């Protein structure tokens, strides 16, 4: 019953907000209330729904088999995340979209996007999976192109990748239909076990590549930074937290549930050089390289989008180890990443709402003007860097342990190098925006309104709560692991007990808080202290005032830039994209020569075609 609700509610929402398009310019409030009620209903339906094994929704039959949708543990996990983050984004956008009618179709495309994602996650057969995948890609394109001028061109970049992914997926779907004779997942997964190596390899690659493109794994990530960074900031939060994670859902669904990890392991030359180890290496690359590219960024949103690629690498890293701890870490990391990356981008949006810019070289000292945004950013970056007591640490702990104990030392080292890169770029983010001297022009900046504060507060609570008590989420992860055919993780409310080293986040947090209290007592024993103005600062005897620029933001990591600048300039992805663009233009020129536009050339083509056909027929006859 809930499957139907989850599918039809977004459709109704889309219809309603599209209908209200005409009134959007005058009655922004009506549109926002409709959107709010719609997403509240979706969130309620998602929360009440549970994994229903029985009733599969039979959609219209197409190509001889019905489109079936059902709710499993895995899909319920994603449904909850999608519903949750959509509700928070709508909450935030009600406060953030001030000038009425700037984005009339904002909520309509959001409903469409949610419908597409629910469809992909609830699909129980390949055909409906493919149809919903296309709808989701188009919805993402329309959501993404709302923003500054370059958002439109960047969204086109995404569309090219999405179309390629869709076509490859279609090839995979057709191949599987031919070989197994049906679209249904269960039938396919039973049949695929008996097939020879060749067909499984081709089918697997054809199915996996679009998933990797969607989750922006390393060589195929070119579309993400530009498109996510130039859209409306609340959309950036929405996309970078959940949109790319549907690709990870696809990887989990096909690699573990349908094909099964044993089949994937058998694909390859030896136990060390199989498809899973390739995935592992790709994931390690995706974890390391984007985080160090993030170091060089001057725009806050672009820095965070590079990180969302990097964190995607962590998720894949956890899944590719295929061990209990690894998969648990990967799945848990999907939830964690959703919470803290949206928290960071909402804080950036709060700052952009007041100061109008996200350029890290121009901001500074906003901690005194926007303390809540600072706290939100602080919780977010502690989570992103994976430092206790936030939840990012727990999933990274799982991934590290599975990599070390699973015998992948250098992949574990790559994961740690990525963490160091994350810590560096994350401190640059919070330092350039909130710390340092406050420029004169931001003197009268105030905190953001109620609608924008609520999502930040909720996410801060979630990041801390699931960090201290990871068991809350691990219960779902364990249930998913049973579907994936991996031994579920033995979890407790606050961590993991195992012979090879344990984790108890509740104790760590209690000791952490008591140590801070002790430190506070030591601090208060010292003499009185007085807060002074920012111009009362050591400048080697120089008199500081408001027109003395005394902030260090530009070239923050000069040593790293000194070493890695040549490498960064020759970024391979940008050059490949440019060459591809040039190739398309050249071939376009040649083709244009054929269509000269005069009638006689077309008549000549007809005659030639008829002659050719006759020759073939005569030959055949």
């Amino acid at each position, binding site marked *: 019953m809930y499957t139907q609700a989850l599918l039809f509610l977004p459709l109704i929402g889309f219809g309603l907000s599209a209908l209200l398009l005409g009134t959007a310019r005058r009655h922004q409030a009506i549109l926002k209330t409709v959107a709010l009620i719609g997403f509240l209903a979706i969130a309620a339906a998602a929360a009440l729904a549970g994994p229903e094994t029985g009733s599969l929704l039979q959609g219209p039959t197409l190509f001889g088999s019905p489109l079936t949708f059902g709710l499993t543990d895995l899909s319920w996990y994603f449904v909850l995340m999608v519903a949750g983050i959509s509700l928070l984004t709508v909450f935030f956008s009600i406060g953030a979209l001030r000038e009425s009618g700037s984005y009339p179709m904002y909520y309509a495309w959001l409903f469409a996007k949610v419908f597409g994602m629910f469809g992909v996650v609830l699909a129980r057969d390949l055909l409906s999976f493919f149809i919903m995948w296309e709808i989701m890609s188009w919805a993402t394109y329309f959501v993404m192109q709302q923003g500054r001028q370059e958002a439109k061109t960047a969204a086109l970049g995404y569309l090219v990748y999405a179309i390629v992914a869709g076509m490859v997926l279609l090839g995979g779907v057709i191949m599987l239909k031919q070989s197994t004779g049906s679209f249904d997942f269960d039938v396919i997964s039973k049949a695929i076990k008996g097939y020879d190596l060749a067909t499984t390899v081709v089918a697997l690659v054809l199915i996996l590549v679009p998933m990797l493109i969607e989750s922006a794994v390393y060589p195929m990530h070119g579309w993400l930074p530009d498109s996510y960074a130039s859209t409306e900031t609340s959309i950036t939060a929405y996309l970078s937290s959940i949109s790319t994670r549907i690709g990870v859902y696809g990887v989990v669904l096909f690699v573990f549930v349908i094909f099964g990890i044993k089949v994937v392991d058998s694909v390859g030359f030896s136990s060390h050089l199989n498809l899973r180890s390739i995935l592992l290496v790709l994931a390690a690359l995706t974890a390391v390289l984007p985080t160090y590219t993030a170091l060089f960024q001057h725009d806050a949103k672009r820095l965070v989008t590079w990180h969302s690629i990097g964190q995607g690498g962590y998720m894949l890293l956890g899944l590719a180890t295929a061990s209990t701890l690894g998969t648990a870490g990967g799945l848990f990391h999907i939830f964690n990443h959703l919470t803290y990356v949206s928290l960071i981008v909402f804080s950036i949006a709060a700052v952009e709402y007041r100061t109008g810019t996200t350029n890290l070289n121009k901001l500074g000292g906003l901690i005194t003007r926007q303390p809540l945004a600072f706290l939100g950013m602080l919780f977010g970056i502690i989570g992103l860097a994976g430092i206790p007591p936030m939840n990012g640490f727990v999933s990274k702990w799982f991934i590290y342990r599975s990599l070390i104990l699973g015998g992948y030392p250098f992949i574990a080292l790559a994961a740690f190098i990525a963490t160091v890169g994350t810590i560096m770029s994350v401190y640059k983010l919070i330092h350039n925006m909130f710390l340092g001297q406050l420029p004169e022009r931001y003197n009268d900046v105030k905190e953001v309104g109620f609608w924008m504060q609520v999502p930040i507060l909720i996410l801060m609570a979630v990041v801390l709560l699931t960090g201290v008590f990871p068991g809350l989420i691990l219960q779902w992860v364990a249930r998913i692991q049973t579907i994936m055919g991996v031994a579920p993780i033995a979890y407790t409310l606050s961590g993991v007990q195992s012979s090879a080293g344990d984790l108890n986040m509740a104790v760590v947090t209690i000791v952490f808080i008591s140590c801070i209290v002790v430190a506070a007592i030591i601090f208060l024993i010292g*003499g*009185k202290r*007085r807060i*002074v*103005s920012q*111009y*009362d600062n*050591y400048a080697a*005897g*120089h*008199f*500081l*005032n408001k027109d003395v620029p005394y902030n260090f933001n530009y070239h923050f990591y000069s040593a790293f830039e000194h070493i890695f600048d040549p490498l960064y300039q020759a970024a391979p992805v940008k050059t490949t994209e440019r060459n591809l663009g040039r190739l398309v233009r050249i071939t376009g020129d040649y083709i244009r020569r054929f269509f000269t536009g005069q009638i006689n050339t077309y008549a000549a083509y007809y005659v030639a075609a008829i002659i050719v056909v006759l020759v073939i027929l005569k030959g055949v006859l």
Partner: protein
Amino acid sequence: MAEKELTQRSAWDKVLANLRKRSLWMLHYCTGCGAVELPPTMTSRFDMERFGIMPMVTPRQADILLITGYLSVKTLKRVILIYEQMVAPKYVVGFGSCTINGGMYWNSYTTIKALDRYLPVEMYLAGCMPRPEAIITGFNALIDKIAKGEANSWKDYYENYEFYHKNQQHVFGDIETHHDVTDDGKYFRVVEATR
């Protein structure tokens, strides 16, 4: 007020003073020719670290502000800014005869003749320039004063700020040090509210 200060020191103040005297960090503001006497005092020849005295870089971390030589009006502005940036209890040590009464530049039109009209000076080291032995005996005398609790010239700056401020204005007008000294005095209860 100073007499009351000396007699009623609690046992805890005495213990604290004896501990505090063993660690003095010195910011030597090399205005004149005295700075060249400091390196031998710090290094192995005379080693003032034996007494816990260490050169420090910024005014926030320093206890002693060592003015090593003549002070032109322009430098005095910077010295006052640095003095106000230091964290009390702080001690100004005038180094050499230039800070006592103008020294060799007694008839110059730009150098100030008596440092203690602009800053509360804790101790003068006579000499043009004093040798390292003089510096070390001077510092030991300062350590004894701290131990006895007499080194309270920094309170003088808060209590008689109008006197110091008037002299400073007389010499170079007003400067913006972002410190309201009288207000600081009340906030840190250096100056009893009643006065």
